């Protein structure tokens, strides 16, 4: 993980603050923004992947068994996957 902005010194910065490890926001946790979490009834799942396609975070990944599950590290709990799932696999429940 890159040093946080509070730890970086001026000498640490590349000229013009260039980021040389692009895509590194994967380190950044957005999962704690969530107030609702997706709950899956996988028995109904068609494994179609529509949820993954429509996820604004791009955080829904295919499991080895072919299901599509949101990564809680990034999932912000918007509920689009639940709304768009053609087989009503997903319901949103309150974060405890």
């Amino acid at each position, binding site marked *: 993980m890159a040093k946080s*902005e509070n730890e*970086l010194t001026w*000498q640490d*910065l590349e*000229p*013009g*603050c*260039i*980021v040389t490890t*692009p895509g590194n926001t994967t380190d950044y946790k957005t999962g704690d923004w969530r107030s609702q979490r997706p709950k899956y009834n996988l028995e109904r799942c068609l494994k179609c992947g529509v949820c993954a396609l429509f996820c604004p975070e791009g955080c829904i990944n295919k499991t080895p068994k072919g299901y599509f599950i949101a990564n809680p590290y990034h999932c912000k709990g918007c509920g689009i996957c639940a709304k768009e799932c053609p087989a009503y696999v997903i319901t949103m429940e309150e974060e405890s």
Partner: protein
Amino acid sequence: MSKRIGIETSLAIAETVKLVNVDVVAAYPITPQTHIVEHIADLCANGELDAEYIPVESEHSAMSACLGSSAGGARTFTATASQGLELMHEVLYVASGMRLPIVMAVANRAVSAPLSIWGDHSDVMSCRDTGWIQVFVENGQEAVDMTICSFIIAEDPSVLLPFMINLDGFHLSHVIEPIILPDQDEVKAFVPDFNYKYRLDPHNPVAMGDFATPAIFTEAKWANEVALTNSRAVINDVWDRFYKTFGRKYQAVETYKTEDAETLLMTMGSFSETAMTAIDAMREQGRKVGLVRIRLWRPFPFDDIYEAVKECKNLIILDRALSAGGPAGPVASEVKAALYNKSVKPAIVSIVGGLGGRDIHVSDFINMVDIGEKAIKNNDIKPFEIYGVRG
């Protein structure tokens, strides 16, 4: 072989852009800069310069296209003046903040209103703090030589900062002078290729232009400040090497007949040559006067200025710009600030003149010295004197 020819300074700068093999030029016409980019367009059209010439729809886009081109790894040049420089103002900070080594010639001109197409330094004085390396040239030869050196300095991996070459509009931009244009091979050997480590390259992706929170903004600004201050060593080195290769010597601050001088004039830009003639005339009358010319404006040459003026009693500084409602002309303000904490320093008189293209002759410089010496003698130094205003 280099050749000595009679050529307009603007065209000579364009020819130099060809000599350093610039890759991209993005520019918008504005008087008195236009001859530079017109001639570059000609050179491209004739196949003499293999560059992309982008005829943008505004100066804002000129500098923006330069950002893209420089970030793409291309050697990049543009030129502007006055309102054009003001229109690209916000982009100037981005060029330095993102460390993109764009070179720009500015044919200095007054800023509206009233509209004036004629020369003074008002345009560039609003750009003092944009983070660019900035020089003022005195003549056509220097314009050529500074242009050659500017690319080496700007593109040096330890510098990576944009470079502004200021030349007086009309008084210099439109003057035909005998100028030595170096040979293409000589320049090629002297100016290394631009090899930007971080260019936008799909094979090695980087992200440029992230935003910074308060937690890191100060560090980002300080990193740039250190780079700008440290560029002085590279500037000295390149000018030294230029002297060894081409035989013409340039320093951040130049002095003329300053030994034993009690009163020094200080100028910046092409009027310095007239000022030298005035010094000669006064010396003939037995007056102990000399001249200090500032070439490097950013990074500001604090030590060089102090060295140049520490022995004199009176210092009379000419500014071709008015710092509205401020303490003095911009150059005088900075010199005063540079000397304030020194225990031995001259009395300083700030004179603002030569605005909007008004000429300053030898007799005017002599007059300024008279005005300055009198004010100091009578202990009647005003924040600044406006020279030659009627009424």
